[in-house]
């Protein structure tokens, strides 16, 4: 076995890589429950690949047969309903994990120097996931898929000069049809997916270059023992590999409970209108995006002007990319920054409120709350550069506090 191992290692850096990234990669020992999200996201991406592959064995990307092929998967294909629900519920769970993962980052200052690139690459993954979810969403060609495709591709009309031709280029024709489904399938399975995989790899490499942050926001490499290992660190393998494996067990139990007992989560993970065939003549009774895109939709709706609304929406989507430079306080973790912590919690509540309002019909009674929440959310980013320079902070400990 060791001669084989020596042969392989002369040609591929297997042992070296395992040492660098697992057994001698020291991670802080005070990771809490929020730190499961990263490894669970890796698990979910693999599960989406597997369930997606088996779905693609039966899916037909034409306007005549797409809806029927999905119904065939649900009723005719053996275990088809299980694979489809796995894939759809997987999407919502991925976004729950993404928001947990990002919020953890903001809470503990994981987006601050020297981890700016980890944050930016990670945020790009989030944007790609939204794009991936959108193109996937159109494929079943229910009425919701049709109108979602119609509306989102219409947003491109707003681009100056090239807007209308860009919209036609995306659709491959005047409306959402077979040409659209075929290219959206290609984007969903090949292009966006592979770029997401590459971005995930870069995200992990960038993180390992610098080392993981921790809930106290302090640098564990500052205090090393006589053997050169960080006093507050534990080797990723076996400590966090085993801990994450346990996390996988708990998470899969939750995932499976949802698939079998609440696969549509009462209309939240899968809307009722997905189950009606696409009909260009009949609009939807209520027009809402999936819950994970809802906050940005609510912000768009809050502005009573087409171009400014789109501008606000795009700004709110892209602003978080600037966070490493908007936040200027020397202290990282919100545990020692009570003002930043309150701002973050308010922004978080505003974001969740916007998600909820976005699911409601555009009635006048929601308008005020929608606008206030938008202002609070955007206000977080706009005020942060100033507040972070002057806010009082608590003394930061030298060693982690567990």
């Amino acid at each position, binding site marked *: 076995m060791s001669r084989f191992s020596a042969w392989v290692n002369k040609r591929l850096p297997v042992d070296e890589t395992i040492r660098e990234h697992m057994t001698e990669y020291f991670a802080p*020992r005070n990771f809490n429950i929020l730190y499961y999200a990263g490894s669970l996201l890796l698990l979910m991406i693999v599960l989406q690949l*597997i369930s997606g592959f*088996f779905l693609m*064995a*039966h899916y037909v990307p034409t306007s005549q047969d797409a809806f029927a092929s999905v119904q*065939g998967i649900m*009723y*005719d*294909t*053996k*275990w*088809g309903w*299980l*694979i489809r629900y796995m894939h759809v519920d997987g999407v919502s769970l991925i976004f729950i994990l993404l928001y947990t993962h990002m919020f953890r980052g903001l809470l503990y200052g994981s987006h601050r120097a020297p981890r700016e690139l980890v944050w930016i690459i990670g945020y790009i993954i989030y944007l790609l996931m939204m794009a991936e979810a959108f193109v996937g969403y159109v494929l079943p060609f229910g009425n919701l898929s049709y109108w979602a495709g119609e509306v989102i591709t219409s947003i491109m009309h707003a681009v100056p000069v090239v807007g209308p031709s860009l919209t036609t280029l995306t659709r491959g024709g005047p409306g959402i049809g077979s040409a659209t489904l075929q290219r959206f399938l290609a984007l969903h399975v090949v292009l966006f997916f592979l770029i997401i995989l590459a971005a995930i790899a870069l995200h992990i490499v960038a993180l390992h270059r610098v080392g993981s942050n921790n809930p106290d926001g302090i640098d564990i490499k500052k205090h090393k023992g006589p053997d050169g290992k960080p006093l507050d660190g*534990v080797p990723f393998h076996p400590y966090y590999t085993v801990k994450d*494996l346990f996390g996988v067990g708990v998470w899969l139990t939750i995932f499976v409970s949802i698939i079998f007992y609440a696969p549509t989560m009462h209309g939240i993970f899968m809307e009722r209108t997905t189950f009606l065939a696409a009909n260009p003549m009949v609009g939807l009774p209520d027009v809402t995006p999936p819950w994970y895109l809802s906050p940005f939709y609510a912000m768009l709706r809050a502005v009573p002007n087409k171009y400014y609304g789109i501008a606000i929406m795009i700004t709110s989507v892209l602003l978080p990319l600037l966070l490493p430079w908007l936040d200027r306080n020397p202290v990282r973790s919100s545990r020692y920054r009570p003002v930043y912590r309150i701002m973050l919690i308010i922004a978080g509540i505003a974001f969740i409120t916007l998600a909820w309002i976005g699911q409601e019909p555009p009635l006048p009674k929601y308008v005020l709350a929608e606008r206030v929440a938008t202002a609070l959310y955007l206000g977080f980013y706009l005020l942060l550069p100033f507040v972070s320079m002057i806010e009082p902070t608590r003394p930061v400990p030298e060693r982690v506090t*567990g």
Partner: protein
Amino acid sequence: MTIVTDSEHGHKNITRRRFLAAATSAVGAVVAGMVAVPLVDSLEPTAAAEAASSTTVDLTPIEPGMQVTVPWQKKPVIIINRTPEMLATLKETMQKGILKDPLCKVPQQPPYCTNMYRSRVPEWYVGIRICNHLCCIPHYRPKKGSVAPWWLGGFHCPCHGSMYDLSARVIQGSPAPHNMAVPEYELSTEKMSATITHMYPKAHLC
């Protein structure tokens, strides 16, 4: 919290660790297997594909002595309404000793067709019209003396000359080794319809 590695607990820890690792791996393997089974099963033909895989034929337009060839699972299936004269030739070929496998010993047909008529009902022959040699579609030659002076009626393959009688039993001198295959089918003379359902698993087409 320090990492416990001192030698007093060392032995117990290693045994416990090995047990836990083995137990987790075993359970993990079982779960992976249980997940793999429905995924692989999903690739089997769907109910719709299964339904499309059988063909029903109306027998009323087929007069005695006439044949119809219908597509079933992309293969030609011949249905012949055999007259009493045609049925008599089946005994003749057996008496002349010109058949390679007169008693249908090789299972090229379902058990209910293992007889000299190679069918459920003597008059109605249902068979896959593919030559057992190299898969061509043989000509149907029911007329006596048409292929050779001694020809009693049957099939003659244009590719390499294989010959069969009116039950598609292969004649000596043909390159084909076995009788032509007969599929599994239902036939009702009251309803005058036949439904071809599956390939007989032990039969070899060509």
